[in-house]
């Protein structure tokens, strides 16, 4: 199963996100935290973007929704249902066709009752009914509406956040670390709602650090390293290390408990001191001088990879 057989719901090409910072008084520096990122989600697909914590994955979600901070600039093209999006169009779509499911209860206003927040402070009968239906669907007691966020358990909070997403009829869910602190079984269960949603012909972009979870639920996996996606591969390719393309993906695979738990030395480069060419170069066993040039993305066996040595 590859993205090529599907109509795209979301397609991101060459997305770059730059922070403008002032350091030591008035010296302005640009910090590129995401560079030339490509990722796509087809109809019926659940695509996981996997990267280590603190690598700027959340910014990807914020860039798609157009909610980056003011000192942050995004370039690149985003298509939604084959339509190239402008910032104005994103504004119209967010919260309606493209929704975010955030990671924790902190994303709810602590001083407003849950029901009111789910309905975005609207009080029409139809919305009330929809909210009640969704609470039933997600097995939330109706009295949850009268609780404040701090009164929700972790599981309830996750389901409330889902309800906020489903109040409109979205085509794409962007789930940003939706299962923090859950062990694999519980996380898989929490993810079943996303799977169901995708199976109805919608798209889910799951942003996570948890590769084991991604392998369980996703159709395709995009591996995020130092601000870019180094490889986009069908989940089946993760059966064996030989079907994987990028040396970083292979290193990740070997680091999994079931594959020997081999740690991989070194750290991701910080956005400020990024090496020339391939960002993985300094840690890569296959490093050659060509790696310091411009690395084009290539398609190999229905997957895409950003490595000149990939086979």
């Amino acid at each position, binding site marked *: 199963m590859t993205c090529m057989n599907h109509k795209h719901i979301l397609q991101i090409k060459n997305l770059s996100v730059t922070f403008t910072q002032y350091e030591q008084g008035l010296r302005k520096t640009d910090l590129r935290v995401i560079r030339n990122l490509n990722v796509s989600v087809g109809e019926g697909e659940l695509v996981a973007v996997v990267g280590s914590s603190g690598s700027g994955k959340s910014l990807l979600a*914020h860039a798609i*929704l157009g*909610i980056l901070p*003011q000192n942050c600039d995004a370039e690149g093209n985003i298509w939604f249902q084959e339509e190239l999006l402008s910032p104005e169009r994103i*504004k*119209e*779509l*967010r*919260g*309606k066709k493209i*929704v*975010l499911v*955030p990671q*924790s209860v*902190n*994303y*709810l*206003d*602590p*001083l*407003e009752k849950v029901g009111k927040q789910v309905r*975005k*402070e609207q009080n029409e009968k139809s919305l009330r009914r929809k909210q009640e239906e969704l609470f039933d669907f997600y097995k939330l007691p109706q009295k949850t509406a009268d609780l*404040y966020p*701090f*009164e929700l358990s972790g599981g309830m909070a996750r389901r409330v956040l889902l309800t*906020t997403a489903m109040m409109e009829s979205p085509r794409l869910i962007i789930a940003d670390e939706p299962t923090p602190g859950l062990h694999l079984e519980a996380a898989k269960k929490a993810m079943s709602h996303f799977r169901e949603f995708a199976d109805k012909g919608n798209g889910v972009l799951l942003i996570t650090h948890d590769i084991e979870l991604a392998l369980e639920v996703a159709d395709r996996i995009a591996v995020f390293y130092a601000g870019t996606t180094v490889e986009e591969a069908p989940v089946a390719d993760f059966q064996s290390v030989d079907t994987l393309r990028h040396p970083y993906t292979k290193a990740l695979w070997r680091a999994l408990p079931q594959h020997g738990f081999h740690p991989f030395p070194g750290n991701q480069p910080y956005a400020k001191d990024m090496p020339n060419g391939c960002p993985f170069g300094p840690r890569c066993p296959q490093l050659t001088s060509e790696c310091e040039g411009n690395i084009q993305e290539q398609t190999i066996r229905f997957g895409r990879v950003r490595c000149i040595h990939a086979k």
Partner: protein
Amino acid sequence: MDIGRYSGILKYVVKSIIKIISLLIAVSILSFVLVSASPVDPVRAYIGEVGMANMSVENLAKLEAYFGINTPPIERYWNWFTGFVQGDMGSSLLYRQPVASVIHVKFMNSMVLMTTAWIFSGLLGFLFGIIAGLYRGRWIDKAIKGYSLLIASMPTFWLALVLVMIFSVWLQILPIGLSVPIGVNAAEVSILDSIKHLILPALTLSVIGIANITLHTREKMIDIMGEDYILFAKARGKSNLSIIRHHALRNILLPAITLQFASISEIFGGSVLVEQVFSYPGLGKAAVSAGLSGDAPLLLGIAVISAALVFFGNLVANLLYGIVDPRIRRGSAYE
């Protein structure tokens, strides 16, 4: 009655009462020590240098006895303390009236002044702070912030003098000081007169108070606008107006309450200076006079009353917090 839900508040109030009693005792002891240790000789301050020179030894001894110079300090304090506990605050040596009635009159004068300033600085500071926080970095924020920093670094008495210069000396539309016109019978003073005399001191106090509240509110507003729930509200396609109305204002209310009630102490402190400059016969001015003339009973009375007032303000803020914030209000019921 569901006692369970309110037991937390009840416990809190009882604890606070114990706290305030110990605080007031400490404040009175400290003030007494300070006024006893002060180099001001109350008799000399009371009758002046010339009076001292012309006074006979017997009369001087009588006066010293009246001022209690020769009574040991601990005994004097104890006398004051036992009287105070029974509701007798003693007599002011300076005004030759019971301290309670002096404080009552002065307190009423100050109250009008301070309440006006408190409300104005609270409302305007809150408004300016929110605007500046929302439009952080834009020109309007820079203007508000610049103004607040300028005012905050200005000495109160200096601002008062500048205002007097502008409005009383140059424009001559407002009186220089006092709370009533000079040379007019107390019965003939109109409300308009009182208001006219109130404007400049209240303006000075408000202007000074606004700066502080604005800067604090601005910081809080910036913090709130950076919260995850604001980001999520944006991601859900809510309009800026709806985000401000439903989330930002709701969340800034809590710190605003704390700030507003905590500012009572600052307004109180400011009023001492302002009343001095405008010769406004309030509590602040009475405190200064009492201190300068060694009027221990009055000074102790004022210190205790003002400490109680400030403490009460903070107590109200904390209680309001419990009412407004569901995490405190409902927290106990769901423990």
